[in-house]
């Protein structure tokens, strides 16, 4: 048994930590939030040059050929910096969809651009009625010769406004909530009939609502198997959950450490706040839950990498626990910072908001608790 990362992974970790330290303080980040894209094209290019955008792309297509552990290292560091660039949407979800489900021709066409940063992808899976159920899909694709015609609506799609291609879950047969009859397509964002409306999210990121009206797409753009796309969709959700949980763990570390530091500086009643035992115990609880989240993160990530029997359950456990404890740690970081914690001026509020959104992405804690218990 060994929980140490390899020397190659250590190099990756050092370089991503340095990147976050150099490029992400709160003021710089909040300026990026206000831009139309919502992130820095320069940072994106740097990420490409450092090889991170191809971390999970096979070496044959110019990538790093890494696994979920490499992604975890990157995402945890991104979580510490509240990084805005669409790494999750494009590399973790989009590139994986093509790498795992695309034809060789499609991989050759698409993946090099993802790796060099010129192509940005995203995944559109949620619908207005679906809440957290991946299989609840109304958007449908109808066969039309060699093509398919797509009609429907996708909601809360991360960073679709700056993406060139969108992976879209559609229904090609079966009923609205059947796991069979789902097919994934890779659709050009600028295709006729695609209407994208973008808006900010509370955590300073970008999302879009997307309408598909008679959008024509070639059958060569099917990812995974026709009618059997749920497997790939669920694998993408799993990859997304692992990445989000790693990001959350990074954010939690900042929150508990900032709180420990602040309570030692701030004096009330002629004492540092940290002298008060009730606050000490609260911070110990925050720290403990951070460590427990990290343990579940390692557990689920390693089980997914090794394709273990219990991997799916561990992923549910992880998302449940990270959602619940992210809120716990965030709320207490704010509480222990007092009035200052409720302002936009300190960074903790921004980490807290990110953790709130992470809880809602790919199913909240209640949703995954129910799946775990089922």
């Amino acid at each position: 048994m060994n929980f140490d990362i390899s020397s190659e992974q250590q190099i990756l970790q050092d370089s991503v930590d340095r990147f976050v330290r150099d490029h992400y303080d709160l003021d710089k980040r909040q300026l990026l939030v206000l831009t139309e894209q919502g992130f820095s094209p320069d940072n994106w290019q740097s990420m490409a040059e450092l090889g991170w955008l191809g971390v999970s792309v096979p070496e044959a297509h110019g990538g790093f050929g890494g696994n979920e552990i490499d992604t975890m290292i990157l995402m945890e560091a991104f979580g510490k910096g509240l990084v805005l660039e669409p790494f999750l949407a494009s590399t973790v979800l989009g590139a994986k969809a093509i790498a795992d489900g695309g034809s060789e021709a499609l991989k050759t066409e698409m993946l090099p651009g993802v790796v060099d940063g010129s192509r940005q992808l995203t995944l559109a899976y949620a619908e207005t009625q679906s809440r957290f159920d991946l299989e609840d899909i109304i958007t449908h694709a109808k066969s039309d010769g060699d093509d398919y015609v797509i009609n429907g609506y996708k909601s809360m799609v991360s960073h679709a406004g700056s993406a060139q291609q969108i992976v879209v879950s559609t229904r090609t047969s079966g009923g609205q909530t059947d796991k069979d009859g789902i097919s994934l397509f890779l659709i050009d964002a600028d295709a006729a009939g695609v209407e994208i409306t973008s808006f900010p999210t509370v955590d300073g990121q970008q999302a879009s609502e997307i309408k598909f009206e008679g959008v024509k797409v070639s059958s060569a753009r099917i990812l995974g198997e026709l009618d059997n796309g749920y497997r790939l969709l669920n694998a993408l959700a799993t990859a997304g959950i692992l990445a989000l949980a790693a990001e959350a763990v990074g954010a939690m570390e900042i929150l508990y450490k900032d709180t420990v530091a602040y309570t030692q500086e701030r004096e009330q009643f002629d004492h540092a706040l940290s002298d008060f035992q009730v606050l000490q115990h609260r911070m110990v609880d925050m720290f403990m839950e951070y460590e427990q989240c990290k343990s579940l993160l390692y557990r689920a990530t390693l089980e997914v990498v090794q394709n273990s029997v219990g991997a799916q359950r561990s992923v549910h456990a992880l998302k449940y626990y990270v959602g619940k404890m992210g809120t716990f740690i965030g709320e207490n970081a704010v509480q222990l910072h007092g009035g200052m914690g409720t302002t936009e001026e300190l960074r903790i509020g921004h980490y807290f908001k990110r953790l709130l959104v992470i809880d809602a992405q790919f199913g909240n804690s209640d949703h995954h608790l129910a799946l775990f218990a089922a």
Partner: protein
Amino acid sequence: MDIDLSGNDLAFQQEVREFLAANAYKNGTDYAEWRLNWFKLAQEKGGWDVTKWPEKFGGPGWSPTQHYIWEQETAIAQTPWDLPFGLSMLAPVLMSHGNEEQQQRFLPDIRDRKVNWCQGYSEPNAGSDLANLKTKAILSEDGTHYTVTGTKIWTTLAHIADWIFCLTRTSDSGKKQEGITFLLIPMKQAGIEVKPIITLGGAHTVNMVHLTDVKVPVENRVGEEGKGWGYAKGLLAHERTGLAGISKSLAALENLRKQASEVKRGNGTLLDDPSYRAKLAELEIDLLATEFTELRSLASAANGAEPGPESSILKLKGTEIQQRIQKLTVEAGGIYSAAWGPMPVGHLFARGGMQGYLSSRAYTIYGGASEIQRDVIAKNVLGIKKSQSK
């Protein structure tokens, strides 16, 4: 003991309902005009515009049950917005400690909602440790005025306030609770600068207020010099009772159920989800208990007792309940709670839900943080004293 409403109480309830229904806001009419008229009509009912004021000062002289009925009915009806600073926080201090001239000068404008007040208590280094405040007030040699310099923080709506009631330090000798003086200061004057503080929900409600050599006539001092802490403590007890908001929470819970019933989940709605239902049920049980804790507190207040340390229970429970309602609203919104900005996305309640949740994080901080409330209960109710170290 008896919880049934008497015949008289039922008649009162009916009267309140009729008043609220007859004077509800009508869409398309002038809101500001309606608001001031509403308070006028409420005043004509016999002090319904200042329900918590003593009869001597124009209040209605209601029994605890009548107060409870009023809270219940106004929580579900549409009533005009109102601010607590002058009405519920300053007015009781003026009534107990102000002189007659001050009462006549300030109370009518507060009652008529003509003048907005804000509260100048907290300072950057005096939060939970409020008595640590440093804003200096120096009495002139001729004894006619104070010169006030210092910084107040978290001043709610200072940017629209006409006046601020302020705790200032007039002496550094003795315990820090001594030497605090309660002053009334007009906001619109040179030497007062209001800087906005933007909070997590993106809203501007609180401010930093800098006072630089602001001259305050001694006539604007409430009570004696150096006794302000005692007056403020009574005021904090009023503030804490007012912050519990139980009737509003009961109404908010009903609203939450309605919202959850709009959220589709599988073949049903979120209300069919056993874990969500259980959370709503737990919340409701806490509310049922806290509602009666409030009633018990109201009943003791009716016997002439000032709201005492037991009001701390209400602030703690009440604000935690409000936060849980907000949290469950965010959960009901699901991923749509993340949407921000002016464009409507998904469930319409979801965005307001996130905003409300983020704002609600301050409920357990202001008016005495929950940790402080527990200290107060431990000390004053449980009687726990610090032991001498051995």
